[in-house]
């Protein structure tokens, strides 16, 4: 349950923007070049590049240094730690509730009517 706070802060801040979330969504399906990423948006290449820089700075994406078109790649680390922590917390409460439900059935069945 250890969370690298700084990295997550930056990642969540970066994801606060809908365009950047859409870019992350697209990259989740595979690497893409800046041109490919810009295509669905009504936005100039420099505009998209600005968003990519924000995502790159917080470690959410990386860009190949040597390939000619420098495709963007989604780095899962920062997202994974956020999701893991929240999912774990939700799982604990869900299972606690399941067990409490069973426990209440047990004790009520044992002591009185229903």
């Amino acid at each position, binding site marked *: 349950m250890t*969370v690298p706070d700084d990295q997550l802060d930056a990642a969540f801040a970066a994801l606060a923007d809908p365009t950047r979330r859409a870019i992350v*969504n697209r990259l989740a399906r595979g690497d893409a070049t800046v041109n490919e990423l810009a295509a669905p948006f009504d936005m100039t290449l420099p505009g998209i590049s600005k968003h990519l820089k924000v995502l790159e700075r917080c470690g959410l994406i990386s860009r190949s240094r040597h390939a000619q078109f420098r495709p963007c790649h989604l780095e899962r680390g920062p997202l994974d730690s956020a999701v893991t922590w929240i999912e774990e917390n939700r799982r604990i409460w869900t299972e606690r509730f399941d067990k409490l439900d069973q426990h209440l059935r047990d004790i009520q069945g044992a002591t009185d009517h229903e």
Partner: protein
Amino acid sequence: MSDELVYTRIFDAPRELVFRCMIDPQHLTHFWGPHGVHTPIENIIVDPRPGGVFQTIMVNDADGAEYPSKGVFIEVVEPERLVWIEDDINMTTTSTFTDLGGSRTEVRIHQTNVPAAFRSPEAQAGFKSSLDRCAAYLAEVLAGNTR
């Protein structure tokens, strides 16, 4: 309102009993640990009054690893409301017990001040929905990346 987690469940039991389950080690030991983990009664300390401790040690069934957790009660209103704060991470958990009639009780767990990473002002501005939904969204995105 985005730095929060909310979990709700309805139980077929009277409110007094459900409330008692949350503060009595005899009951807590039966349900506090999620699957694969148990919470021995001898490691549960509950002092249900403001300033009193709420301490548990969950133990992993498989390898015996221990997960201690210590909270301090801020508010105890029997049988309606319990509020405790966890020292180490400063997360506040509010449990609200609502009598729905007919021996049914709704329990609502509301957690705020979830760890710092999840509550930067930027994150709050961006995620109007609960963190829970945000996590579900991110999990979907990530799932798409693995398959």
